[in-house]
């Protein structure tokens, strides 16, 4: 052991058999509750429960997926094959794997799937109650290993309910839950597992869980891919940022979900055994989400797209990157996150389009796109981080992004003038004569907060009275449209798969609510456009893997650029780090077989790929 830290006091759990994972959940308030089919029970989810003991039909990896085990980042998990829709997408059938057993020895069959759907359909307060009752007309099991769904309406993305990105509709053990009278009050302690691990023990105060590998791990979908190596997996939650850093340095954690940028830079420098996603700067893993400036389209200040564009052109991408991530940001000018396979599918192909993209300022046409901003940022951080910063252009683009808008205050002024704004001293006045002033809602935590503060500052400097307004609960206000502008992400994607329906479907104008009413997730800006509706309806009509999907996706990106309903900025980079002190083989940018962020259910694949350092 090196001098840096004490050996963990885990006599029963030898480190070469045990992986200790940081779970970002806070204290789990209902620690002895393992029933994932009741909403809001206060139980843990990413405490190992949905990482190690649950399963459903498919997994879609936010990164590339394990080669050979997945195709196009899609794993067949409990399903033996991909979904099969009928021609008009009103029925879906699926074949199930054979030889999979629950941890209590009962075989998994189609009956479990049917039970899962029917039980939740019948029980309000279960997570998929709404989805199943709205969409499923009938579910049957033609035989022990196949399931057939009849849908209420055509839906080409119905399988998404059973496809894990972060989570999905987990299959219930019928033989357990059919005996339970009210599943909403059933704690399922200990849980019957369909994954390769079962519960060993847990903290009655809700801060750690220990899972033990099943003797019959081969009889699980994950085990069929490869053997999960650790005998024990410990999930520890409620660890403050600084404690995480200390604990991974002291060898009491192997995987950390997230750190501050500064903390990461420090610990990586301090301990050569610790790695991030990128081998060098910026270390962070880009989540398939896209922080952006979201305008409330129901606010009259932001009705005019020239105003929205003007606000975009007032921003300096370099400053935003430096302020938020100390340069470790992966920029994106378009409304698709620069992560997973998206650069291949969207950013690279659209690069030329962007370079030539013109904006009419009312007085002239400008080409606002700067393809080299990522390179500039890399140059900016090089003095501080030296060799850790990549030099290869492709690597830089991957890590720092493909480009962003040039800061062009003159053009912004022209756009505002064209929109009827006037300038009074250094203050822009709206057409109605009032000063152009608004609030930018920012979360109180982390990099997004820093980003928001920086943006408000740049706008203020350009004569727009924007104030960053910190809110510890932006979700609630975002949902009812109680904000003017907001920093959050209105885009989330599968990551490994180019289909955009994951977020785009809910952008349909049919879902836009009145001001003050709850708005369905994702289209926080309440943007409506008939052209957008057409694109969404077209996507609904094609298959998930249909290559036309990418075309529609490009159409969406272009429409978005024209309207600029929100200003995409960068990937949501997560400073997930792992220690190679006891285990190696973690995923990273060079071998992106899985998402290293520990609370995603997909993280389970990592356990099949790592190996202990010592015996």
């Amino acid at each position, binding site marked *: 052991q090196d001098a840096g830290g004490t050996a963990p006091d885990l006599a029963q759990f030898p480190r070469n058999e045990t992986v200790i994972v940081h779970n970002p959940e806070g204290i789990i308030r209902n620690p002895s509750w393992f029933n994932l089919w009741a909403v809001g029970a206060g139980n843990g989810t990413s405490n190992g429960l949905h990482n190690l003991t649950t399963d459903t039909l498919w997994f879609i990896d936010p990164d590339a997926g394990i080669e050979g085990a997945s195709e196009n980042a899609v794993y067949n998990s409990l399903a033996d094959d991909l979904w099969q829709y009928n021609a008009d997408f009103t029925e879906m059938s699926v074949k199930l794997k054979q030889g999979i057993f629950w941890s209590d020895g009962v075989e998994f069959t189609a009956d479990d799937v049917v039970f899962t759907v029917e039980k939740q359909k019948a029980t309000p307060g279960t997570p998929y109650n709404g989805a199943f009752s709205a969409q499923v007309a009938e579910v049957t099991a033609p035989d022990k290993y196949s399931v057939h769904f009849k849908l209420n309406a055509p839906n080409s993305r119905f399988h998404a309910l059973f496809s894990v990105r972060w989570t999905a509709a987990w299959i219930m053990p019928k033989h357990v839950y059919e005996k339970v009278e009210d599943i909403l009050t059933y704690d399922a302690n200990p849980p019957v597992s369909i994954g390769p691990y079962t519960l060993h023990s847990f903290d009655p105060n809700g801060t750690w869980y220990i899972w033990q590998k099943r003797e019959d791990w081969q009889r699980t979908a994950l085990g069929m891919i490869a053997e999960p190596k650790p005998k024990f997996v410990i999930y520890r939650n409620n660890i403050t940022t600084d404690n995480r850093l200390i604990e991974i340095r002291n060898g009491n954690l192997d995987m950390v979900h997230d*750190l*501050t940028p*500064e903390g990461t830079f420090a610990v990586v420098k301090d301990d050569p055994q610790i790695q991030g996603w990128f081998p060098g700067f910026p270390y962070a893993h880009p989540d398939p989400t896209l922080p952006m400036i979201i305008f409330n389209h129901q606010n009259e200040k932001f009705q005019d797209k020239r105003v929205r564009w003007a606000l975009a052109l007032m921003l300096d991408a370099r400053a935003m990157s430096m302020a938020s991530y100390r340069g470790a940001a992966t920029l994106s000018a378009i409304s698709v996150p620069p992560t997973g396979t998206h650069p291949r599918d969207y950013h690279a192909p659209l690069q030329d389009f962007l370079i030539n993209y013109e904006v009419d300022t009312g007085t002239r046409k400008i080409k606002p796109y700067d393809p080299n901003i990522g390179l500039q940022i890399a140059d900016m951080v090089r003095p501080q981080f030296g060799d850790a910063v990549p030099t290869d252009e492709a690597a830089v683009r991957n890590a720092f992004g493909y480009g962003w808008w040039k800061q062009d205050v003159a053009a912004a002024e022209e756009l505002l003038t064209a929109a009827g704004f006037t300038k009074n001293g250094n203050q822009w006045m709206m057409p109605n004569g009032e000063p152009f002033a608004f609030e930018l809602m920012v979360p109180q*935590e982390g990099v997004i907060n*820093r980003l928001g503060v*920086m943006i408000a500052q740049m706008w203020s400097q350009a004569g727009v009275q924007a104030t960053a307004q*910190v809110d*510890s609960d932006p979700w609630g206000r975002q949902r009812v449209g109680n904000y003017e502008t907001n920093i959050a992400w209105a885009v989330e994607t599968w990551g490994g798969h180019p289909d955009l329906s994951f977020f785009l479907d809910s952008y349909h104008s049919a879902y836009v609510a009145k001001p003050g009413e709850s708005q369905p997730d994702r289209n926080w800006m309440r943007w409506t456009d008939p052209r957008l509706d057409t694109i969404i309806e077209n996507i609904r009509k094609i298959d998930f893997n249909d290559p036309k999907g990418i075309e529609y996706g490009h159409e969406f990106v272009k429409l978005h650029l024209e309207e600029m309903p929100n200003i995409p900025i960068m990937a949501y980079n997560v400073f997930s780090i792992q220690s190679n002190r006891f285990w190696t083989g973690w995923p990273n940018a060079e071998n992106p077989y899985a998402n290293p962020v520990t609370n995603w259910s997909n993280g389970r694949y990592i356990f099949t790929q790592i190996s202990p350092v010592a015996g």
Partner: protein
Amino acid sequence: MFAVLRDLIRYNAEFTIGLILVGIVAIFAALSFFSPVDPTQIYLAIPDQPPSAQYWFGTNSRGQDLFWQLSAAFKNSLIFGITVAVLSRIISIAVGLAAGYLGGWVDRVLMFINDIFVAVPIFPILVLFYFVLRNHMDSFTMALIMACFGWPFDARLIRSVALGLKHREFTRHAVFAGMSTRKVLLEEHLPYVMPIVFSTFMNNMLWSIGMEVTLAVLGFTNINNPTIGTVLYWANSHSAMVVGVWWWVLIPVILIVITFVGLFLLAVSMNEYIDPRSRLRRMGA
């Protein structure tokens, strides 16, 4: 007044040291009125610079010159602390003197209210108010709320002194000299409780600033408003302590210690000056 000050400075080392310490901090805080930079703006300087000739207190990871940042933070926190202390002193003096002097049902009602304020936990109230008021929760509102909770204990202390004063002969004398209740309380009794007021003033400031820090560290205040609490909040959210930007934490802590040690010395020496007993001793009764 001036002569008193001069005497105190000349002959009371504690007072002098206290005055110097508090003076340093007060001047430092007042400098923020002449700040060349807007303390809410970020990335105006190179981040993470240790203290140097250019940046006396260094710069933080947000690219702010800590000198001006802390100057503004201390201005805001001191104003906040003083506001809370003054307001809650006013309440506690009013309640304590009235309850002690008037007695009877007034006393019972006031002490009952007092008990309620003691019993109700302030922390959840502040957090809930933060959610209710959100961006309207400026430091003055917070000071008002804190003042509402900062008085009960001291009011009890004052009451106990007032209870004793009530039976003193000079109180009865004042009543028969036709002085109104208000006059008796303010002119006859108030001077006797001033030592308590002074020492609890400091404790109350300490409490309110500490509470502000707690709330800020947890993110339940307007974190864009520079205060001691938000300085620490930002230091924390940039892992300043583990990353080695020690000056971001150490300098404010030193300044706080200076402030309160200074205030403590002032309170002690002022008390000695105004304590009626030392005065009595001086007059040789």
